[in-house]
């Protein structure tokens, strides 16, 4: 598998179309899953995936086989998603006309939610909350790193994460209650 990937990457570095398609087939599902949770909807996720793969093929000569290729391609996808966020959403102030959630801190997460629903729950977050939550909780970046990436303060990153968690918890609970009632 590793040897096969090595050969495909080498062929992609020579701009060979067949290798490009093979590389795409190899990573498309994993990368689209990442795009889905950074995007606001399915179409935007497809845009990120397309732009991301075009960048992969454009920059693949820079890949020096010094680390895992999957990590490299994943970083390109995340960076593409962040570029899209910076371009379209950074200037939009977060709408503060929100209803405060009566959050029960003692509730635990027990629901096994369908993945499509879970994706929808993340996509429904405001763009900033979604990006901060993804970067912190799912990618493992620190608040300092996030603040530099998104050009916000660390405090803003922390408060955005807190709000995102609150909203996610509420939605998960709501979904769980609904599924219990219908079953």
């Amino acid at each position, binding site marked *: 598998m590793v040897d096969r990937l090595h050969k495909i990457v080498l062929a992609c570095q020579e701009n060979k179309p067949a290798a490009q*398609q093979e590389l795409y087939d190899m990573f498309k599902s994993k990368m689209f*899953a990442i795009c889905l949770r950074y995007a606001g909807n399915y179409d*935007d996720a497809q845009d990120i995936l397309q732009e991301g793969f075009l960048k992969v093929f454009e920059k693949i000569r820079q890949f020096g086989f010094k680390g895992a290729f999957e990590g490299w391609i994943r970083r390109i996808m995340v960076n593409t998603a962040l570029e899209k966020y910076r371009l379209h959403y950074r*200037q939009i102030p977060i709408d503060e006309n929100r*209803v405060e959630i009566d959050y029960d801190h003692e509730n635990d997460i027990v629901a096994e939610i369908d993945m499509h629903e879970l994706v929808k729950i993340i996509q429904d977050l*405001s763009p900033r909350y979604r990006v901060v939550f993804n970067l912190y909780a*799912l990618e493992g970046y620190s608040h300092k790193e996030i603040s530099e990436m998104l050009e916000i303060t660390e405090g803003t990153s922390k408060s955005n994460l807190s709000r995102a968690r609150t909203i996610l918890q509420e939605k998960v609970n709501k979904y769980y209650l609904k599924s219990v009632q219908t079953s």
Partner: protein
Amino acid sequence: MKNMSEKIDQYFKRQFEQYEELPPETAWKNISAKLRHNRKKGIAVLFFRIAAGMALLFSLGIGYYLISKPDNPVDAPALTVSKNTDVEDGFSIKPSEVDQERTALKPVKKTRIRSSRKAGPADDPELSTPVYVSYSDAVNNPEALQPLGQGLIPVDLPGSLPFKSLSSSSIAIYEDIAALLAESETEAEPDPLKQGRWSLGGEFAPLYSNRTISSDNLEADQVSSLNDSETGMLAYAGGLRLAFSKGRRLSVQTGIYYSRYGQEKNQIETFSYSNTEVTAGETNRATYLAVTNSTGVIYSNNPENASYSQAITNNSDSYKSNNAFAVLNGFNSTYLTPSEENDISVEQLFDYLEIPLTVKYKIIDRKFDFSLSGGLVTNLLVNNVVNLEQNGEKTRFGKTDEINQVNYIGSFGLGFEYPLVSGFALSLEPRFRYYLNPIDKSAYVHPYSFGFFAGISYNF
């Protein structure tokens, strides 16, 4: 609380760790189409770079030729007589017999003319001693040399020139010719044009600017729609021009210019979004400006002071789709209403610094000159602005993204120049300029402009 936060993080992390989702098939189709397009573009860029390189080399070559060309290339022909003429007969010339100043004329390209023995006194074996005469003399003054040949040996000349060998009796005539040529040499005044001259000036032009859309990624009806809703606008260019000419007709020009290109977009729509039943995390209100434009992506860089939260720009999709309003959390199309006010237009302006390298050739070299000029302009984006005009009031809205920073323009002009006093000259040049590369990263748009460059220059 911290424990709870970690739990929700871990829950999502666990769920998404192994999550995979097949993308739609159209994704690969779009990627491969773009890859094909990039390959074609790569070839075109390579071709363009080679062409630009050749144009640059051509311009530099002409410049170098004009600068390094030897002075006075059409000097008065110098008559050179070999000093190896110590034959004591009537056919050779001794240095002592001709004035040193006259015989020691400036050497020029010499052609060794071998005498061919055919008749008469030339039978003297001493004639085999070669006599050197400049070829330019033979070519330029055959008639003047004709009398030398009375009854003497004809010589072989390239092109069967009517040139004959020298006789002793012709020394006097030779002296006359040499004197004449020496005189003409001393009388010739150096032509300042041949020594090269510089010209410094300024020029300015109002321009009409517009663009062409060329892409195989857009449907014909999309191009048609964009052409219907976008118009060219009046722009300008101006700057300092430095020219060097050596000779009367050719000159190389460069300088530094500032120019503006722009286009106006009509048919703007606005949307208001008002969520009356807002729940947690959902957007309550927003006002959107929807622009379907050809050139780049318009965005507002100052939304808190603008009437519109954001501009949605694209050139293919319908912005009425939910996708365009993805930023609105919990978007529901029932809360979306088109705004009544729609007499809005947007103008996209791009300011550039330009460095031209052009060659100018004078077709008519009279008091009133007429010339052709052409060359390459390197163009650097220094500023871009998007203005919003509504109810006659213009406000700065934002910028255009996805625009190339460096561009190359092909320039072609017809120039008229009229001398004023003391080295000053007035010029007028209608000039057409076309962006050789697309200015937007989507590779759709090639702007062009046409204008009358008027200026004044000083020759020194």
